[in-house]
């Protein structure tokens, strides 16, 4: 794997968007996309946590799990690292940047169970990314996720008062909108392929 980190960064946003092509982080994507502000807050929190935890997990994996030969424990260790990082971030933000805490704070606990965070960590191991590649990929994935949830929140706002079949309201129409977005993003796939 010798893809340039810059290419990887753009690829993670557009061609292999973590949500639209890998389906990661769907639960919070569907439930927190009713308003633009909360969608934006959660998206920013995801970028933040994703980049930090992926860097930490990379270090833990290659400097702790591989030398000790306990790779099979990676799931448990990754989850613990993610949970601990989120707790720590919550404390630090609350203590030093209270203004940010009020906008971001409520979303942090939600992130521990966001599969995008855990999924990107597993992808970086499976695809043998280097440390720099991992940071570029994680930051790009976070931005891609923010882009997707902002678009869905915007579209949901527009179609709120439109006539939608009763059975399709809520999750159904959100999934159809996401499907159309995913179709549009396939248009980017000719640019670069990192799968």
């Amino acid at each position, binding site marked *: 794997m010798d893809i340039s980190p810059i290419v990887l960064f753009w690829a993670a946003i557009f061609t292999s968007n973590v949500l*639209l*092509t*890998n*389906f*990661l*982080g*769907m*639960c919070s994507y*569907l*439930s927190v996309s009713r308003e633009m502000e909360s969608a934006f807050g959660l998206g920013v929190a995801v970028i933040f946590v994703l980049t930090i935890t992926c860097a930490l997990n990379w270090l833990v994996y290659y400097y702790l799990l591989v030398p000790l030969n306990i790779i*099979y*424990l*990676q*799931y*448990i260790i990754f*989850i613990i690292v993610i*949970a601990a990082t989120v707790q720590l971030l919550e404390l630090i933000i609350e203590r030093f940047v209270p203004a940010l805490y009020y906008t971001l704070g409520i979303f942090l606990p939600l992130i521990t*169970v*966001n*599969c995008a*965070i*855990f*999924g990107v960590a*597993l*992808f970086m191991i*499976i695809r043998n990314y280097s440390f720099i590649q991992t940071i570029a990929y994680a930051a790009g994935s976070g931005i891609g996720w923010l882009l997707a949830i902002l678009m869905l929140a915007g579209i949901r706002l527009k179609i709120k008062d439109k006539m939608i*079949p*009763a*059975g*399709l309201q*809520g*999750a*159904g*129409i959100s*999934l*159809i909108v*996401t*499907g*159309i977005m*995913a*179709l549009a993003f*396939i248009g980017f796939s000719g640019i670069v392929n990192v799968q």
Partner: protein
Amino acid sequence: MNKKDIFITSAFKENSVWKQILGICSSLAVTNLMLNSLIMGLGVIFTLIFSNLTISAIRSYTPRSVRMMAQVLIIASYVIIVDIFLRANLPDISKQLGPYVGLIITNCIIMGRAEAFAAKNNPMDSVIDGLGTGIGYTLVLLCISAVRELFGFGSLFGWQVLGSWWLKWSVMVMAPSAFFLLAIMIWLINDHYYKVKKG
């Protein structure tokens, strides 16, 4: 509630995918082939049954403050068993499922059942609830993957059903079709099973 009611409720009435909209990530990602869906479903059923059993068995000894962490660790342990089993016995499928086996840990269905059912009920009922939820989930996976594999590859469970005249729909292999099919499935079920009316 008797055992049969618990099963029916968790598998159909309160189905975690179409009613509670949980565990969407994996139900979309692994549904391009029926075999992958079946294996994934079996993995989730196994994890659900045993995590529900364990969490329910130790529910009176777990302090509330560390409850979540204990549940995650219990679930992760069973997922590791599933992962190691697949790697040893079905290496091809394990490679195709990739990170999605590990992602069973963060699958909201399992945490949801642990929190909503196993932490409050006795072990026997919890096992039945886990089995019901898992079967409901597997059913959704198989329905979506049947359509995707039939139109995308012309086959079912790897058996060529449609002849060589069939023009493969490449969109069925790609991501968007999964979103559309799940949306259509939720729509049909809302209309015909729950009989949602305008109002």
